[in-house]
């Protein structure tokens, strides 16, 4: 079967990384450039997305639904929703950002990138390394040079626990 329909609305199945299935209206996924092309060109009814965790997919579908309901009158409500949407642990936020980038949902990508940037804004270099689990690959000489040049980079908020 190529596609199933209920009334006028086309239904599409998205399969997350752990094989969980999500059934939703096709019109919703058109916000994603990637899925839009798949749906339009290949006329598929089920799209496997093995690289995206189901948990992440749930969040993204939640966003797509809210965004589709956006009207000038509930703008404020949507803003609050967006704020809550990125209020998750950094690990999850990065998962979402990567998935959104893959799916090419441009508006949400902008928002996620800003949210990640906000997370590292007040952090010291050490904290940023800790958050992203980056090992410094500079030599001790280079490292001390940095400390001399921009001492303030190594001060600031050392706390990485809020993430």
């Amino acid at each position, binding site marked *: 079967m190529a596609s199933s329909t209920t009334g006028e609305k086309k239904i599409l199945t998205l399969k997350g990384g752990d094989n969980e299935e999500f059934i939703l209206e096709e019109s919703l996924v058109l916000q994603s450039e990637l899925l839009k092309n798949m749906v339009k060109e290949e006329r598929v009814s089920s799209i496997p997305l093995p690289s995206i965790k189901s948990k992440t997919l749930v969040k993204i579908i939640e966003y797509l639904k809210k965004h589709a309901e956006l009207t000038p009158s509930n703008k404020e409500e949507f803003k609050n929703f967006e704020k809550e949407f990125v209020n998750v642990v*950094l690990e999850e936020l990065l998962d979402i950002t990567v998935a959104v980038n893959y799916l090419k949902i441009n508006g949400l990508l902008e928002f996620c*990138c800003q949210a990640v940037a906000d997370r590292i804004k007040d952090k010291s*270099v050490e904290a940023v390394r800790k958050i992203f*689990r980056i090992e410094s690959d500079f030599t001790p000489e280079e*490292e001390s040079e940095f400390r001399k040049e921009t001492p*303030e980079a190594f001060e600031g908020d050392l706390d990485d626990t809020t993430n």
Partner: protein
Amino acid sequence: MARTQFEKLHEEMIAEILSRLPAKLIGQSRCVSKQWCSILSGPQLIKAHLTFHSHKYEEEKLITVCRSQSLHALTFNQNGNGVVSRKLDFQQQLSDNWVTVGGSCNGLVLAVNDKQITFLINPTTLKYHRIPDSGNASIVALECPNRLRWFPDVAYGVFVRGIWENGVLVNGALHWLASEDSDYSPVIVAFEIFSGAGPTTIDKGKHVISKLVALRGCLCILSETEETNTTWIIKNTMWTMKDYGIEESCTKFEVKGPDDAGLIPLCFMSEDDVVLDACASLIAYNRREDQ
């Protein structure tokens, strides 16, 4: 196996995220790792950062020369009341004998010292570059169309003189005032400096334009006189053009200052407060309250 979190993001995305950081933090984030350093030094990031921040400044800064001939960075608080002054300390590498700030562009400042040597300064990183004193060297070659008569000082050294002193860089196009042969009323001429397209002229109706300034990525047009029927009223009228090239997006505000002339807007303090340079003193002007 736990992968490091940023491995999941490819470089393009790291750049996308980091371009949203304020300039000061970009410098700091270079210390995180070699990969970050290379991403943060790339031209792509710089471009993305400029596009992003030219329309949304987190804080507005102003660099001025103090009486002691040192350079100071003034930061205005969001509420529009407080001003924080920070001295740019070059730690003996450059002496404090500054005479004037020639102009600024994309966060870099052009300062001239008493020996007439010009330095390009990044006030955030305090890195500087001495501009070679080659007189009227022109970095960008422009073809002068015949029908326009340029103001003599604009014809030379487009990059050094044009942008910094005369022309105004907004949206990748260089703007300055020129007058056509038959008519002395100046028109705005725009050059796309990267694509080389242009010039195009922007018509601003019956107003006599006296100066162009860039404010928050918007072109700001100043006019000191306005023709109303038969009388001439001296006014300091300014327009800011928000959406580039669309005249309807202009917001016009008039300044009724104590002095009739000589007010030059320098920067926005907040949505409605503009800092004006009125003959060597700084004035904060609130657009909404008109004071």
